[in-house]
């Protein structure tokens, strides 16, 4: 059997819980091999095409969601991969982690109304610089969110930088694709649902594309992102 063309690493921190969903969703294509990598490892044991930091409650959300990930051995390997230009996506708690380890700007605060929100939301693709978004054809995706700490926050200066550098990847929108306060479920500054680093290879987003990817899911919009990075 020949080696699969693409290896996608899925990081499993203590308390991560979406790793199997991500493995199933990202591993659908025959040419893709997904591998779970414990956060206790300090490398990915070989080249990887892309890295997924899944959702969950890593380290029990102690201190702040994602904050403890800074102490994990795999985090150094994440820094190196980000520097090398490897496509990286952080989903939900993965987004919180990427912000807390400073691979992405900003931070995720408790939702504006303090409640856990679990529902589908519209997402407007604002920038396709991330390899996870480069091949996404529709401008609006329908993907669920499930979070209590999803309110993206950054200073006014950082927001201006994000806009100037085309780092705002995804914004919350309504069914018609309109961005508004009413369509913003958690009070995120700038209606932001996802941002990239300056280089564009690291993407963080609160919604779960892996929950709209399989035949038994209510929709398959998440597959646009999966197919984009696996192309």
């Amino acid at each position, binding site marked *: 059997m020949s080696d699969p063309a693409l290896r996608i690493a899925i990081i499993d921190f203590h308390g991560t819980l979406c790793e199997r969903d991500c493995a199933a969703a990202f591993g659908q294509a025959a040419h893709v091999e997904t591998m779970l990598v414990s956060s206790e490892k300090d490398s990915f044991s070989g080249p990887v095409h892309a890295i997924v930091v899944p959702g969950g409650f890593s380290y029990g959300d102690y201190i702040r969601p994602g904050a403890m990930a800074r*102490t994990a051995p795999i985090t150094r390997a994440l820094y190196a991969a980000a520097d090398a230009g490897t496509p990286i996506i952080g989903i939900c708690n993965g987004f919180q982690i990427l912000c807390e380890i400073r691979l992405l700007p900003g*931070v995720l605060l408790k939702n*504006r*109304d*303090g409640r856990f929100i679990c529902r589908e939301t519209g997402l407007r693709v604002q920038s396709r610089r991330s390899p996870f978004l480069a091949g996404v054809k529709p401008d609006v995706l329908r993907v669920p969110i499930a979070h209590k700490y999803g309110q993206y926050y950054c200073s006014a200066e950082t927001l201006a930088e994000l806009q100037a550098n085309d780092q705002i990847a995804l914004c919350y929108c309504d069914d018609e694709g309109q961005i508004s306060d009413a369509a913003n479920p958690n009070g995120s500054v700038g209606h932001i649902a996802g941002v990239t680093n300056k280089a564009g290879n690291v993407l963080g987003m609160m919604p779960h594309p892996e929950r709209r990817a399989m035949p038994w899911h209510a929709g398959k919009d998440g597959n646009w992102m999966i197919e984009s990075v696996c192309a």
Partner: protein
Amino acid sequence: MKYSVQVKIKDGVLDPEMETLQRLLRRSGVKGIRQLTHTQQFVLEFDDQVDATEAERVARTVAGDVLANPEIHDWTLDVL
């Protein structure tokens, strides 16, 4: 050496927990509270063989890198 790190949310950053608590207190009849904030205190106690300079350096690193997020927090360090 023993250090106290106090972490508080910066002015202007929304704190839904404290807003909710203030609203519930008001509803239950508590009057006169203009603003309600909270501060987290972490106490770092070092081994005896760590000298004060090194202990303070480590305490500052831990405070700035893990205990607080500079995007939303102000923090202070005190010797106990």
